[in-house]
């Protein structure tokens, strides 16, 4: 087997070297520049009304505020941990808003923006990070699956779900989310093989935020990730993950192709994790502050705001109203979190099986008797 050096751009593997590590990306789909200028792309166009643009801006601002509030709540001891989406708002809102009724999303643990687009209550997401629930929301009613912490597992689930859609003749698609690090997992590669083999209506949406905790992209891949798709036999496309319009256009096209029976697509949303991996992480140990500064210039929200203002589609009153709405949301999240009741101890025995087994029922009875033995005592 030979590798064509004309199409394969080998990235110098420098673990831990100063980043941004990748050269200017050649095939990056972009429709809105970091300066907020609308540009055209030969393969992807998008027609968004003024109202849609304002809605996208609102989405972006609200999920960022939710995220900032959750980080603060964790710092104040109200959450066990929080996985911030800071910097990835456009990738998530763009992808989430590309979904239609009947499509189903399969997230990792960071897709709060996608959760938002599916109407999942932020407090339900927070309940997971507060340690109140292992699930948090209704995955069926929201068409937004439960978060998957075990890296990559959900890619196979999305593929299987897509195979089910295909069998049923349903013209819908599954959207699997994954990170750059996840692309190394065997299960993720198996998912892509299955998806290709059965031409399943699934789209793999990879947020390449440049890191898997501390490990930079070069440890996972020697070629740009979107080029991996070719090896599996389906199209791969790299989109500016900080450009909500481009992400929306690219994901819409991929989902439409999947629904029409053209099989899977791999989307690499090129972005950056602007915060720590989670609130437990200390990124100063493995990356330079200058890198973050550079990515701040490509902020996913600033460019939409610039575009909205410049094109006269939104005025100060609009921006103020979104701010006010964000403040309201933050307040609701804060109050709702602080007041969130702890589950009863017996909750752990619930729904372990469709019907509780006799041994487990006996164990629960023992548990209750044991708990009751403390009642009235000082314990």
């Amino acid at each position: 087997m030979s590798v064509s050096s004309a199409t394969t751009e080998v990235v110098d593997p420098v673990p831990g070297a100063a980043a941004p590590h990748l050269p200017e990306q050649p095939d990056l789909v972009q429709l809105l520049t970091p300066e907020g200028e609308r540009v055209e792309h030969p393969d992807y166009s998008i027609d968004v009304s003024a109202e849609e643009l304002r809605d996208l801006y609102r989405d972006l601002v609200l999920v960022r505020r939710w995220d900032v509030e959750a980080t603060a709540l964790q710092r104040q001891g109200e959450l066990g941990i929080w996985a911030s989406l800071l910097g990835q708002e456009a990738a998530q809102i763009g992808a989430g808003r590309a979904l239609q009724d009947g499509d189903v999303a399969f997230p990792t643990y960071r897709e709060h923006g996608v959760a938002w687009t599916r109407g999942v209550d932020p407090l339900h997401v927070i309940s997971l990070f507060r340690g109140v629930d292992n699930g948090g929301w209704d995955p069926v009613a929201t068409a937004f699956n439960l978060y998957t912490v075990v890296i990559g597992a959900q890619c196979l689930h999305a593929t299987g779900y897509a195979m089910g859609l295909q069998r049923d003749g349903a013209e819908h698609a599954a959207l699997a989310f994954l990170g750059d690090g996840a692309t190394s997992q065997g299960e993720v590669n198996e998912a892509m093989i299955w998806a290709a083999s059965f031409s399943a209506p699934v789209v793999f949406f990879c947020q390449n935020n440049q890191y898997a905790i501390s490990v930079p992209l070069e440890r996972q891949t020697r070629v740009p990730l979107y080029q991996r798709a070719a090896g599996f036999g389906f199209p791969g496309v790299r989109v500016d993950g900080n450009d909500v319009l481009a992400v929306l256009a690219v994901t819409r096209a991929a989902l439409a192709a999947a629904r029409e029976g053209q099989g899977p697509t791999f989307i690499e949303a090129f972005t950056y994790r602007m915060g720590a991996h989670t609130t437990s992480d200390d990124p100063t140990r493995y990356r330079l502050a200058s890198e973050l500064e550079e990515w701040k210039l490509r902020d996913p929200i600033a460019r939409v705001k610039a575009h909205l203002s410049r094109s006269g589609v939104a005025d100060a009153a609009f921006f103020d109203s979104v701010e006010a709405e964000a403040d309201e949301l933050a307040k609701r999240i804060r109050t709702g979190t602080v007041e969130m009741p702890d589950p009863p101890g017996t909750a752990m025995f619930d729904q372990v099986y469709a019907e509780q087994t006799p041994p487990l029922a006996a164990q629960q009875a023992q548990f209750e008797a044991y708990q009751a033995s403390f009642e009235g005592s000082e314990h």
Partner: protein
Amino acid sequence: MAETLTIGKALNLGLRRAMEDDAKVVLMGEDIGRLGGVFRITDGLQKDFGEDRVVDTPLAEAGILGTAVGLAMRGYRPVCEIQFDGFVFPAYNQIVTQVAKIHARSRGRLAMPIVIRIPFGGGIGAVEHHSESPEAYFAHTPGLKVVAVSNPIDAYWGIQQAIASPDPIVFLEPKRRYWEKAEVDTGATPGPLFASRVVRGGDDVTVLAYGPMVKTALQAAEAAAEEGRSLEVVDLRTISPLDLDLVFDSVRRTGRCVVVHEAPVTLGLGAEIAARVTETCFHSLEAPVLRVGGYDTPYPPSKLEEEYLPDLDRVLDAVDRAMGF
């Protein structure tokens, strides 16, 4: 030389010493290099030993263990870090079907001196898959050895002994106790790795524990003493092979035995130990061997883990029941 060390730091120094002693020792894992691991157990080792010996791997546990097998075949001694207990399962196939069996299948021609370090157990308020106790899966697999450390001294010596050992070892680290401290005499001669130890003498009930539950058992013994009850606490230390002679001696004296672990009780280590103690000490037993463990439910969300995990009160409750027979 005696130093006050946490379990985490003792592991770090033990790894360092093992790497100094044997150039074939290679550390592999996710985020273990530059970051020093999410628990900082490998802190500073990549800086001092280089990227060839402390390898930040791609994010793939099957890859970590599978390539460790190949490296072992080539004469290396891989020490694999699994970031959290719940993430060992992508590697489970390699561990169970390959690592565990190659020595026997090759009739001893191929050694598998692989150490699989796993921070295990709950109590840290984490989200799911970060609080599991998977020891029974491995102890149930012939060809693997399984040890669990409970204190800085065993951490320091145990990791070195495990690395020097010719067999594959699942090395369980009690993550919620990483910050517990003790004096470690790094010039001492360590006792054997595969041996249980009495960590508190007593006459009424023998309490067996390992890893994070040793501290809990000792706390229970302390509380019981105030009520005039004397518990003998054994740190099992080795889960496979089990080293029960000292347990049998103890149970023959006390007539009562309670086994404590965080893992669900059903088919946990306690089941095996209860069977063996019953088989060997039947005529000395005043009460059935009792088990205190996690409930047979998925590990609950962290708000409920205090109710799920065995604590001092649940150990004492079992002690009461054993005494009541």
